[in-house]
């Protein structure tokens, strides 16, 4: 008889927190990916839903318990990436990252370019101008919100994360060649300080983010060694860090790593580190959740890089603002349409990529078998 599957239930299996295992962050990554897509969609409709947008007292009240989420998600994701960092030969490290990650990045760029053509066909305007505005940031890795020669460049969207991860891992691998830990920490801290000094400049190759986020990955390596996310953080530590983040937010502090904004400089960065660790530990407590919903989130988490790439295409290429104007009187319906379309696009993209990879693996296996049958092992 087929087992009836429950939507959500709690599994108290102690093996969930006994060691580091593959897939231990799938639920956490899935939750963050959902949150990122939701925040992008809600942002497009915030001003239509509320007359005074983010300054609305209701929005402030709703957002006030979420101060950790304003500091922590990006550091948390890079800390998770730190679990996959190993010291290797520089040449091998560069080859590995270029082979695995640069191809999806270029696919995103080509996907966005195709949509630029479609948008040009539909709405007209200067094609060369549009291409330069859109492709330049991709080729040179300008972070979202960068200004060049007085002009605001189009952003590369959420895929800046992949770009920063590729080059951040290579940079971290350089740092790890130093044998002593204090030398590694010193180089990373110096790099972070330089990044904070250069924070306002439109530097290419997400340079500031690479210098800052490699520090998060290094912390991730330490968290793995000490198995910190498997342990329950004392409540008072969570509360203290939450309160500090809330006070800082109320005073105007903000750490937007994607946009290279640190209003209080180093203080915001320290808070980002703390909030990242706390968020990671809190999210890992949810690992007890099982069932259809939790499995769906884990699936999204496991395909996070592809999800991020496909979402970037839909986020940058689809003219959501113009579509939103059609729903001027019914912003909630518009919001729902954008959320559903974004998720459908991302999920479909991931399924197609997975099918493609499976076919490539099967083809490789078949050709290997063919060679062995012809010429022997």
């Amino acid at each position: 008889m087929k087992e009836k599957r429950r939507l959500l239930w709690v599994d108290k299996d102690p093996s969930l927190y006994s060691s580091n295992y593959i897939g231990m962050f799938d639920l956490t990554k899935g939750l963050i990916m959902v949150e990122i897509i939701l925040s992008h969609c809600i942002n497009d409709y915030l001003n239509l839903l509320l007359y005074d947008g983010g300054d609305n007292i209701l929005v402030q009240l709703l957002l006030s318990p979420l101060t950790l989420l304003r500091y922590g998600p990006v550091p948390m994701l890079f800390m998770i990436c730190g679990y996959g960092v190993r010291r290797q030969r520089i040449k091998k490290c560069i080859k590995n990252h270029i082979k695995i990650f640069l191809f999806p990045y270029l696919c995103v760029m080509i996907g966005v370019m195709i949509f630029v053509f479609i948008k040009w066909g539909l709405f007209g305007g200067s094609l060369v101008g549009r291409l330069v505005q859109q492709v330049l940031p991709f080729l040179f890795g300008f972070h979202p919100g960068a200004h060049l020669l007085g002009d605001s460049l189009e952003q590369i969207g959420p895929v800046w994360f992949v770009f920063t991860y590729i080059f951040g891992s290579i940079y971290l691998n350089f740092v790890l060649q130093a044998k002593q830990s204090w030398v590694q920490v010193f180089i990373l801290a110096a790099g972070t300080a330089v990044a904070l000094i250069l924070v306002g400049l439109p530097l290419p190759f997400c340079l500031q983010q690479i210098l800052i986020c490699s520090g998060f990955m290094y912390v991730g390596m330490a968290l793995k060694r000490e198995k910190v996310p498997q342990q329950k953080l004392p409540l008072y530590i969570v509360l203290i860090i939450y309160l500090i983040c809330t006070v800082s937010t109320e005073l105007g502090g903000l750490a937007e790593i994607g946009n290279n904004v640190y209003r209080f400089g180093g203080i915001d960065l320290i808070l980002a580190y703390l909030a990242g660790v706390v968020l990671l530990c809190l999210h890992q407590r949810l690992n007890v959740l099982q069932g259809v919903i939790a499995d769906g989130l884990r699936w999204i988490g496991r395909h996070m890089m592809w999800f991020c790439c496909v979402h970037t295409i839909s986020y940058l290429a689809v003219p959501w603002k113009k579509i939103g104007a059609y729903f001027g009187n019914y912003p909630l319906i518009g919001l729902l349409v954008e959320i559903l379309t974004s998720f459908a696009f991302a999920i479909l993209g991931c399924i197609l990529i997975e099918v493609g990879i499976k076919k490539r693996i099967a083809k490789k296996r078949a050709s290997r078998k063919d060679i062995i049958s012809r010429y022997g092992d």
Partner: protein
Amino acid sequence: MYQEILQNIINYWKNIIDDDAIDITPQSNLMDDLSLSSVEMLNSLLMLEDTYGVVIPEKSLRHMVTIEDVARVLTEIVQK
């Protein structure tokens, strides 16, 4: 069966890691010793599923801590 799967997995990951400094044994921990990235891990799982014509259930992942755990879980699934 188990020994064959174990040897295949070790060879596969030796090829991925390609580093003489890392000793890959059946007791090697996938996260702590091999430090495979999530994409390497996902590709590995897809490769194993394709090689043995099985689907690795979500719940089995948490029991895959070392290489011999992966081989044991895979053997169980294949034999089912």
